């Protein structure tokens, strides 16, 4: 390995917008050997994406590498190439796969044309040859009916399929280096695993080096032998993954690894003897079909008869892929969706019957949504947001409300100085704290947490998970924790229910589900989840 020149060699890369503003990437250096995979890891704003885009010289307008930066591909400098020469490198020698499969293929161009475009540009090939190669590649990535796929439009495929197609069209040119920018972040766990495995297969076959950009340490641990950890534009630590991730030297790397969800963190609580608070019985939920001209599509069944019980004070995690119906159940319990059949009871009271008693009980149940930005009214100051549920309690005076809001601010760790800010003036983590404050301000007995941390950065995720747990220990509310993230679930859940296609396929205590999964789907999910302690085994423990 030492004899060969590196495939990609980045030296002292500094990227800044204009002359005066601070750089977004500072003094970054790393090498990628031919056929090797290196991961750039960091949270949002770490500069990892901009560093990767510098390699292809695709930085958004005012950003540019400053003098003294160097990016060499097999020894030849890329930063001094003319635009025309750079175009010959892009696609042909360095390929790139993007994050959002929904927007990274041109919606107005058939798949075949998009695949052929780069081939035609970089190689002299006849139309028949292009077609043959495209078909062979689609077959290689196990697309059913490749001929039909060539003539299809991007919107006809799911996100996972599009990501495979994108990968295929990039690898078709046999590039020397592949840049993969969070290639699976937008996908479900099982699909994630599929796409990554395919990427590794193809790159290994062709001997392509990979620059992987990711925020997911578990994924890095599993796939990338070397890693660069970035924080605010600076590489704080780099080296072999096995070493960096198991024995981090820099405090930031430590905090990232510490942020990984861990079962030990949750401790274990015995919840078998608790009385049932919420009972869901034979619940069926249909979404009305799309309204068309003079007719309606048939309703779509999201949940096919689900039974579950949540004991007071316990956390039940509902796990599954997107579209499995897990979110719908949470929304049905708090009354946002009405089931077409079945019963939902709160301490024996039927919540599907309208009446003052139902309204009173509903106030004891709250929800925290996934995206803290869209769950807060953009025009409401956050003190008002948290105080709003209290307005319904006629016995409270304005002074009472203020005291209560202050107390809750403190409990969720929000500085009182932020009280008159608007939601968009807060960070993602602070916004989620506001949403949690609003949910607990009236001391609910039950909270639905619908993917409460999946829109947040890793270190923030950890804080929010800990906060939820601490609040629960203090106030004793029960929680339905809806998530696709097995790591988070492992940390917070007392019991786990696994959903697939609108049905609960397996339910048990956390340890049962994680240690001795019975159902095939649960096993596949666990297998696909890139939990770091599974990649490095006992080293992490």
């Amino acid at each position, binding site marked *: 390995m030492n004899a060969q020149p590196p495939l990609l060699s980045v030296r002292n890369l500094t990227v800044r917008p204009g002359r005066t503003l601070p750089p977004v990437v500072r003094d970054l250096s790393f090498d990628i050997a031919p056929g090797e995979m290196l991961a750039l890891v960091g949270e949002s704003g770490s500069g990892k994406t901009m560093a990767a885009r510098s390699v*292809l010289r*695709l930085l958004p*307008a005012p950003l540019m590498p400053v003098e003294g930066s160097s990016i060499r591909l097999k020894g030849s400098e890329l930063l001094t190439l003319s*635009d*025309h020469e750079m*175009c*010959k*490198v*892009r*696609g*042909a020698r360095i*390929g*790139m796969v*993007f*994050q*959002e499969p929904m*927007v*990274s*293929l*041109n*919606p*107005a*161009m058939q798949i075949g044309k998009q695949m052929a*475009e*780069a081939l035609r*540009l*970089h190689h002299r090939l006849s139309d028949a040859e292009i077609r043959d190669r495209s078909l062979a590649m689609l077959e290689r990535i196990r697309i059913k009916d490749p001929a039909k796929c060539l003539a299809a*439009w991007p*919107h*006809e495929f799911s996100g996972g399929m599009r990501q495979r197609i*994108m990968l295929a069209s990039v690898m078709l040119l046999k590039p020397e280096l592949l840049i993969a920018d969070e290639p699976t972040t937008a996908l479900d766990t099982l699909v994630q695993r599929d796409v990554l495995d395919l990427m590794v297969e193809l790159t290994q076959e062709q001997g392509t080096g990979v620059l992987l950009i990711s925020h997911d340490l578990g994924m890095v641990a599993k796939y990338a032998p070397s890693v660069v950890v970035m924080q605010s534009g600076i590489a704080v630590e780099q080296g072999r993954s096995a070493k960096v991730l198991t024995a981090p030297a820099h405090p930031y790397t430590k905090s990232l690894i510490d942020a990984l969800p861990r079962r030990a963190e949750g401790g274990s609580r015995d919840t078998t003897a608790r009385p049932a608070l919420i009972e869901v019985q034979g619940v069926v939920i249909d979404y009305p079909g799309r309204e*068309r*001209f*003079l007719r309606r599509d048939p309703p779509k069944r999201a949940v096919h008869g689900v039974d579950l019980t949540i004991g007071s004070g316990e956390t039940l995690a509902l796990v599954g892929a997107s579209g499995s119906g897990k979110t719908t159940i949470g929304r049905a319990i708090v009354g946002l969706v009405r089931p077409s059949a079945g019963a939902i009871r709160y301490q024996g009271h039927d919540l599907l019957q309208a009446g003052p008693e139902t309204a009173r009980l509903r106030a004891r149940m709250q929800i925290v949504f996934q995206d803290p930005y869209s769950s807060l009214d953009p025009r409401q100051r956050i003190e008002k947001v948290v105080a709003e549920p209290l307005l319904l309690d006629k016995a409270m005076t304005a002074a009472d409300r203020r005291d209560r809001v202050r107390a809750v601010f403190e409990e969720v760790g929000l500085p009182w100085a932020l009280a008159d800010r608007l939601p968009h003036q807060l960070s993602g983590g602070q916004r989620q704290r506001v949403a949690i404050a609003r949910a607990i301000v009236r001391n609910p007995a039950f909270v639905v947490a619908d993917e409460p941390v999946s829109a947040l950065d890793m270190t923030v995720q950890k804080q929010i998970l800990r906060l939820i747990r601490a609040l629960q220990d203090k106030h004793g509310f029960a929680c339905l924790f809806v998530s696709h993230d097995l790591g988070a679930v492992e940390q917070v859940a007392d019991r786990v229910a696994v959903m697939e296609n609108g049905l609960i396929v397996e339910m048990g205590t956390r340890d049962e589900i994680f240690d001795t999964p019975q159902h095939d789907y649960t096993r596949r999910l666990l297998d696909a989840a890139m939990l770091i302690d599974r990649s490095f085994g006992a080293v992490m423990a």
Partner: protein
Amino acid sequence: MLRFLLTRILSAIPTMLIVTMAIFALMRIIPGDPAALMLGDMAQPGQLEELRARMGLDKPLPVQFATWLGNVLTGDFGKSTATGEAVLPLIFERFSVSATVVLVAVLFASLIAVPAGMIAAWRQNRLSDVMIVGTATLFLSIPSFWLGLMLLTIFGLWLGWLPVVGYVSVADNLGDGLLYLIMPVMTLVMVEAGAITRMARASTIEVARLEYITHARAKGLSERAVMWRHAFRNAFAPTWTLIGLILGSLLANIAVTETVFTIPGLGRMLIDGIFARDYPVVQGCMLFIAFLYVAVNLLVDLIYPLLDPRVTA
């Protein structure tokens, strides 16, 4: 695809029905009895009753509407109360005049404005962008009738290069016809190009920040190929809708331009009808213009899937 086309065409029918109802209602709200208006002040009481019966005005409103709708569907738009001529042939004659001006103007405006808007977007915040947007906003703020009057004063009265009054059809005399077309078309092009340019720029900017544009660049395509092969079609879709709207609404707004240049078009016919209280003419013109507007928008929608295949899903 077929289902999309069929659905879209069928859904235009209720709209048209309500449009006809609205026009019928509007004509009935107008103060004054059409029959009395036709007879003038000199009518005797018996005459009025007789005419009302002949015009069907004594029947209940729904019956009147049904009769009128039946006539309209068979191509009978009634007769002008002023001249006694059948309205529909008159409309067709005047429409051919308006259509010539409008189509030529919208064609030129689009040919100038769409590339201008896209170039401005591609060079966002650079000098050429500021100039293009500035010019577009300026033209957007100039009323067509003023621009027309100024052109008329400068090129017609002062310089004497172009004819000031009247209209010659291109079909009758190509040379003269074109000469008469220059100023009205120029007026409309300038005014409408502003809106189209701004729209083309805005939608191109919107598209340019999407990931598939970066993906296209990452394939090694030149800027020109990225812009025309990937950005153009996606950015053009909303602009295309706007061009359709402009084309449709110009048929109503052109009354103003026709007044400036004394062109005997459909718009002028409507205005003259309003002044003369010639209700069959007003009713007919409004119905025809509204129908065209719906038809143009329908056509725009039917072509839209070619630009954005997602809409048929």
